[in-house]
């Protein structure tokens, strides 16, 4: 059975998900995802015309919060887990290497 998802698509999806796959992983992924999608595809052919998709499990509306301030984290706590804190902020590499 031809793969449901091909190499190009795997690379595209990996890019969307910010994952880097090795050549080997790409190959494995093509096979595994195709197998899973092949099974999952059974629902594609079901006639579900007129059925509302479930978007919320509990039937609630207007679950809101009063506009009252609470205490924010002290800055040192906010930065405590930061991989690279710098000048009171979170330092990250820029989008494109020069």
């Amino acid at each position, binding site marked *: 059975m031809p793969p449901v998802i091909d190499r190009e698509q795997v690379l595209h999806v990996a890019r969307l998900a*910010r994952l880097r796959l090795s050549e080997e992983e790409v190959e494995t992924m093509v096979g595994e995802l195709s197998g*899973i999608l092949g099974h999952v595809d059974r629902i594609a052919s079901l006639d579900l015309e007129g059925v509302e998709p479930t978007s919320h499990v509990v039937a609630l509306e207007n679950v809101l919060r009063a506009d009252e301030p609470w205490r924010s984290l002290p800055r040192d706590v906010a930065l405590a*887990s*930061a991989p690279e804190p710098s000048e009171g902020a979170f330092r*990250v590499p820029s989008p494109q290497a020069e």
Partner: protein
Amino acid sequence: MAEILDLTVLEAHNAKMAGELSPREHVEAWFEAAGTDELNAYLWRNDRGPEAAAIEPAQDWNAPIAVKDIFCTEGAPTTAASRILEGYRPPYTATAVQKLIKAGLPILGKTNMDEFAMGSSNENSAYGPVLNPWDRTRVPGGSSGGSAAAVAGGLAPWALGTDTGGSIRQPAAFCGIVGLKPTYGAISRYGMIAYASSLDQCGPLTRTVSDAALLLAMLEGRDPLDSTSVGIDGGVSLPDREDLAGMRFGVPAELARDSVDAGVREVFERTLEKIESLGGEVVEVSLPSAEHGISAYYVIAPAEASSNLARYDGVRYGMRAGGDGDLIEMYETTRSDGFGAEVKRRIMLGTYALSSGYYEAYYGQAQKVRTRIAEDFSRAFSAVDFIVTPTAPSLAFKLEEKTNDPLSMYLGDLFTVPINLAGLPAISIPAGLAEPEGGEPQLPVGFQIAAPAFAEQRLLDAAYALEQGIGFDRRPGDADG
């Protein structure tokens, strides 16, 4: 000391009330027991030192508990069994855990699990698999494998787990204990590291149904920090039913068709007979869409997960790698090095299902199947009080038996997944032992009972009566044969 560890939480509670057991003795016995972990059930054990100060109860007066490492515990390591959160200590504690701390429960430690709750065998942990106390060459189930093994293996009197597609019930079945997944919305999800937001729920793993009721009573309730939480109207109290008279139990025709191991089927049939002998009625019901549960689940859960796990990007906490390159380099290296294979697989599946051009065919369609499944249950519950199935189609399998075949791993969830899709409560109780292929030792079989939304009390009552009727009192390591 060994006797203290034999007591269920309720028994210990009664003993404390009668002055026969001191809370301190009880707590110390369990902390000591937790230290004998050879099953790799714990990722972190609480030494009750300064780093655990934020999660220390004001006074010990309740049974200590093991908490799945998916719950944020302030100041104490929380990894979701992933490399990407190695060393991470949250600045806050999950609401569910806070409630337990307030009720006086010391935290024994954080238990091992499948990474980010994705798995059915606890083999997807970045910190090694968990071993099944009944047979250490076998898996304890997943994703709450550590919690289940700890309770079954005498390393904790009770434990907190989470269930998205069966992750409390299936390990409970594989480990011969009780596992309860409450109705979606019964317990707050705030602080519970998200896998699939519309499916995740936390719940108790215990040795008895009564202990599960005790724990559920402490956990349930609306939380202003979780918009999807409502609690259980009327709360929960200890069950005390003695029979099942007047109760109707439905067996879904479609699911019974699927291949179930002979040993599992035998115990299941015997349990149906037990129900009848207790005065319950067993009838066939139809859940026509339930067979599509796996397909719908393995679109919806990965889709939500792909979004929930996108925050693990090396910017604000957790692991960072490739930071010498540019931003994309950092993102890709961090996530590729930090996530395990199963997590990556599900992120890929989910991203694909949501991507442009595929949304309607996959995610849109899966959410419609979900509606149908919920409708099926609703219709069935107008004719019966409960729906019953084996919890899992097989006994606990061998380590590495299914790791090369993800799809076959997924198919083991066929009985548990439809429950999550419909948001219903369900419990797995140990119903007997069966012999696996290849002989000894015998392994436990779980019996699943599902009920309508927010019918936890009735569910616990029925499960309790059945549990008493079955009288399952086997522990791992009992005389074999």
